[in-house]
């Protein structure tokens, strides 16, 4: 890491003494902090979501992605092994893969035709020996010293994760037992992609990391269900946290009433009954799991969330596009063995979230309102996060809490070294 940058920043930046109940707005606007996040978080000891395994099903497939703002390419080699490298030629730094996806035997930079194997090893340099004995690389040029910078990768539950650190524990340990269990519940079966889009939001990436963990705002900002009088019986719920607080699940369960014979025998979830919806089939759903959880949004540090709300399964990946821009990628999924009817229900429920989501489209603008509202504030101005207490602890039975947001900041402070 850049000791000089870190040093000068550490001298001027102090976390408020109240801890993770106070979040300095400066964290969203300070370019030195943004640069340090790339060193300590995105290049640090965390697992970053890279892509889905179904993005690269065949040997030779590649998919470009981003870790922070760092361009990365993920490949599958002839043996079926997955690799990830910084998508930056070892020669002059040009992007090697221009297309977002494709299939290649080698990755060749278009600028000077430096060519790499699918694991990132340099295997060819144009005119290495010159032309007609003139020019060319020095005699001691060693291709082994000029490969694409590699990330460690791990495929896990249909997703590919990457890290720049040798110290990151395997993904299940990084998540902890409870988080690992829930990811396996939702994604531990062959997946198929039902849809894909992104939305660009005009604020720092951490405001979305907060927002996706913010269970307090759900029924206050998002009023679709109450407007349509949708009878949600599934209001029991709470917040589960990993032991370190970095990752969390906000979940809702079917209430006791819903487990009576009347509901247990019904094939269709009761959510839309007696609603004022003119197209109530949008909420047609079926109970997929025995544990009674009907809605869950799982946030994985630093920039991933997995939703299974009713039957709407989606992976959300948010990527910084500069200090004040965030691109949120929505990958809507089903299982490979879904019936047509199940796909129809997941498709209709796709209306609830995403850039045009009836329930949650407000999230596209609300964080920008924070960004704009905090402009020109004093350097020590802070957010106030004491709903549900001042600690980072699971919350059984209530989602009127900011505990998982505090958990994110606890992880952030740990990784950034902000004592």
């Amino acid at each position: 890491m850049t000791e000089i940058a870190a040093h000068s920043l550490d001298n001027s930046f102090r976390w408020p003494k109240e801890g993770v109940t106070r979040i300095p707005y400066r964290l969203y606007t300070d370019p030195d902090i943004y640069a340090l996040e790339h060193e300590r978080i995105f290049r640090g000891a965390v697992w970053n979501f890279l892509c889905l395994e179904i993005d690269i099903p065949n040997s030779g497939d590649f998919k470009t992605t981003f870790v922070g703002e760092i361009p990365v390419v993920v490949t599958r080699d002839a043996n079926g092994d997955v690799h990830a490298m910084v998508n930056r030629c070892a020669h002059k730094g040009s992007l090697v893969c221009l297309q977002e996806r494709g299939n290649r035997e080698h990755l060749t930079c278009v600028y000077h035709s430096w060519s790499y194997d699918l694991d990132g090893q340099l295997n060819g340099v144009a005119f290495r020996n010159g032309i007609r004995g003139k020019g060319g690389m020095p005699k001691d040029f060693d291709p082994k010293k000029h490969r694409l910078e590699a990330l460690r990768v791990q495929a896990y539950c249909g997703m590919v994760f990457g890290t720049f650190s040798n110290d990151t524990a395997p993904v299940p340990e990084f998540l902890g037992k409870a988080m690992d269990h829930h990811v396996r519940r939702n994604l531990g079966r062959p997946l198929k992609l039902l849809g894909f889009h992104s939305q660009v939001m005009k604020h720092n990436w951490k405001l979305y990391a907060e927002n996706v963990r913010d269970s307090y705002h759900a029924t206050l900002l998002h009023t679709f269900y109450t407007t349509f009088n949708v009878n949600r019986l599934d209001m029991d719920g709470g917040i589960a946290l990993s032991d370190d607080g970095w990752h969390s699940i906000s979940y809702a369960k079917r209430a006791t009433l819903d487990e009576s014979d009347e509901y247990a025998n019904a094939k269709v979830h009761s959510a839309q009954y007696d609603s004022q919806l003119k197209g109530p089939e949008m909420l047609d759903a079926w109970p997929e799991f025995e544990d009674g959880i009907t809605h869950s949004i799982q946030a994985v540090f630093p920039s991933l969330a997995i939703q299974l709300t009713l039957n709407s399964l989606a992976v959300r990946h948010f990527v910084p596009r500069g200090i004040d821009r965030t691109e949120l990628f929505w990958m809507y999924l089903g299982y490979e063995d879904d019936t047509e009817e199940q796909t129809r229900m997941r498709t209709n429920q796709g209306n609830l979230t995403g850039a045009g989501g009836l329930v949650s489209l407000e999230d596209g603008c609300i964080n920008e309102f924070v960004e704009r509202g905090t402009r020109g504030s004093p350097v020590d101005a802070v957010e106030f996060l004491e709903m549900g207490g001042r600690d980072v602890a699971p919350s059984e039975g209530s989602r009127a809490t900011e505990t998982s947001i505090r958990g994110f900041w606890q992880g952030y402070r740990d990784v950034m070294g902000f004592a």
Partner: protein
Amino acid sequence: MAVNAAGIAEMDDALLRIRIENMFADYVHSIDDDQIEAWPEFFNDSGFYQIISREGYEAGHAIGVMHCDGKGMMMDRVKAMREANIFEPHRYCHVMERPRLHRNSTNAFSARTNFIVNRTMQNGDMETYGCGKYLDLIDVSNDVPRFQRRIVVLDSRRIDILLVYPL
């Protein structure tokens, strides 16, 4: 009335084309003028409406960005936008090319129409919000043409901020 090969009277193509083109213009003007309650009325009761990226459309994906299977879901969109959803005030301005129409049968046309839509925010920020093509199936069995299907294929898969008005 012309009479086709099967002996069935057909309304003159030219007249129908004018009616369809007028309906297309009324559709975008009602959205641009914030007369959004009129939007579902351009569809048959069983009409289908979808906004999807070009990539998603070409890959045959089921899920785009907006998906209304039947007029009821469109009416719910309108009510949600008016009463539930929170967003910064903005207006669209659609600019369309002349539709390329194709007569499928006595009562059905298909059409492709390219469009650009500009978005103006309350503070005056203006930018191109989207461009792409309408791919339509139009029912002309009644005096007023109606969409049986309108698929809005966006060139970009990236939505700026959010999408609440239909396109």
